[in-house]
């Protein structure tokens, strides 16, 4: 009896062996690409023998920490890792793979104003610095001729948690305002001169929706999904551009020409007639060395799929797909994983 049950167990284990090829991978990181990653990983699982990739959106910082300490198989971040962070990685190198493009948009709540507002970079910086305190300020009116703006104080809303969204926003402000650059700087978490703080994109959206005369910043996807009016921003060429899949892709196209080999680049305030100035890549942080060769294979398959078949899902979720030139270069980097 015993030998029969042992034999049966053996058969069972052998029968499950082919399924062992489908790996379970754990990842964590940025909240911005969370919707598209979840969609991708579920689609990837459907077409690849039930491969399971768990993605937890706990913030770009969480993604960086995860790959640095090796607690996850790979991470994701809206901000490329700094040289300091890369030096702290324990086992091997981390490779950056841009996956999608996103944008950060200014959202506002102005009861009675139905037109879309236009913001120029220095004006946004001064609003967040506190130098411009009222909606009726001349400089905002100059960008928005014909719009009746209330003589009310601007309620500034920012993030409380460290975030790649904040990095992209402050990176843009640092580029257009030397005062912002010296006083505040660009980082995932900064010392905000003024304003209310909301936790994550949802918190900022909530505070803006609740407070009349407020101005905040969120990822484009969140603004679209919550049907929030978002403003146009003046780009480096002087045109006021509204964030959309096309305008964001145009921002990336310009940057693709001068992309560094490790793909760590900022594309805020990019040149281009209709380029949206507050755009950014978001990256997957992939270790170059995996202790389990099956996992390495799975990750490479996933990356290949994400860069080719996966890109069709982007537009439906308001993410801009990668320019072809970037994809070609990334495919070469996949070979560096082993």
């Amino acid at each position: 009896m015993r030998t029969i049950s042992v034999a049966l167990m053996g058969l069972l284990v052998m029968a499950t062996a082919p399924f062992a090829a489908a790996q379970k991978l754990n990842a964590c990181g940025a909240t911005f690409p969370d919707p598209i990653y979840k969609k991708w990983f579920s689609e990837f699982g459907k077409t690849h023998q039930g491969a399971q990739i768990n993605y937890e959106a706990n913030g770009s910082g969480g993604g960086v920490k995860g790959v640095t300490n090796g607690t996850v198989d790979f991470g994701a971040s809206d901000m490329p890792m700094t040289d300091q962070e890369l030096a702290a990685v324990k086992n091997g190198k981390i490779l950056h793979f841009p996956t999608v493009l996103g944008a950060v948009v200014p959202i506002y709540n102005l009861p009675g104003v139905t037109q879309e507002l236009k913001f120029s970079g220095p004006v946004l910086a001064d609003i967040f610095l506190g130098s411009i305190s009222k909606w009726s300020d001349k400089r905002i009116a100059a960008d928005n001729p014909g719009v009746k703006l209330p003589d009310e104080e601007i309620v500034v809303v920012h993030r409380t948690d460290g975030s790649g969204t904040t990095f992209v926003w402050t990176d843009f402000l640092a580029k257009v305002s030397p005062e912002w650059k010296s006083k505040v700087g660009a980082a995932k978490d900064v010392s905000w001169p003024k304003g209310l703080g909301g936790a994550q994109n949802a918190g900022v959206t909530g505070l803006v929706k609740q407070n009349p005369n407020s101005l905040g910043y969120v990822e484009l996807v969140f603004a679209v999904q919550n049907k929030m009016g978002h403003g146009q921003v003046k780009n480096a060429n002087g045109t006021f551009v509204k964030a959309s899949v096309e305008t964001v892709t145009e921002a990336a196209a310009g940057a693709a020409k001068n992309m560094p080999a490790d793909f760590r680049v900022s594309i805020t305030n990019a040149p281009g007639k209709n380029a949206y100035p507050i755009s950014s890549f978001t990256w997957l942080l992939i270790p170059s060395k995996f202790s389990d060769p099956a996992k390495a294979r799975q990750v490479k398959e996933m990356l290949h799929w994400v860069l080719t078949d996966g890109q069709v899902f982007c537009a439906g979720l308001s993410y801009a797909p990668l320019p072809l030139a970037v994809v070609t270069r990334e495919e070469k980097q996949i070979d560096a994983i082993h």
Partner: protein
Amino acid sequence: MATATATVKVVKTSTQTGDIIARWVVTLFAASLLAMAILLVYELVIGSADARAKLGIWRFLVSTRWNPVTEDFGAAPFVYGTVVTSVLALLISVPFGLGAAIFLSELAPARISNALTFVIELLAAIPSVIYGLLAIFTLVPLMRLYIEPFLKRTLGFLPLFQGTIYGVGFLTAGMVLAIMTVPFIISVSRESLLAVPRDQREAALALGATKWETTWQIVVPYAKLGILGSIFLGLARALGETMAVTMVIGNDPSIHASLLAPGYSIAAVIANEFSEAGGKIHPAALVELALVLFCLTILINGFARLMIMATTSKGSKRP
């Protein structure tokens, strides 16, 4: 005269061994609790070492800056926010709580008293996130549209009620904390009041006191210990409350005189920033803030104990 000395031989029966084992086990439990407390302090001290070395203890306590980019951190705005919201919470909840407790113990018929107490104890068990959520959707608009403009109109000459009205801020956070501490105060105070012996009440009434005089001058002072205990229990909850506070306080790390302004509390900033805090100094500064909160709690509890000891020795309690 011979005194009969009986020598009793101690027989080690199984009950004796059981006793010894039981004693060791409960001693172990008590010791482990003490060990946990010591470990907690140890971890707080070790975790904050980087920040204490760079920022200095005194400078950290008085600095109002909180800059993750230049790694310059200061605890003052957070200590201010924690203390202000907690004091505000007590100021609002103690009169309500004590009043309700007096009603439930002295005035209400037994059936109503028991039913209401049951409901109030349920309220005490509701998770704080739910209070926070309720506050965002109901209390904050209420404050922004009605209560804060009213306060600004009538009491606006005081610096406490000046400035822009956001709906979120110290006042709203204090109110949410008050709503959360009231059930504790009611439930414990009511028990203390019910524990006052009947003869005290009857003696007072027999001497010609009115019902109110009896309650306020005899019963409540007799139950002072329990009532004070309930207040400090409520204060302890208010000091450490995280989620409900961060949802309604505005999360602005600065000190404002006005209660209508946004602020920040220690627990809220730790909850918001710890998971993303990078580098060495930022997390260490947050741990140092936790150490500050720990010391604040110890100070307040110590003060509570002293106060209780002082009032007890005055002979206003047990025969």
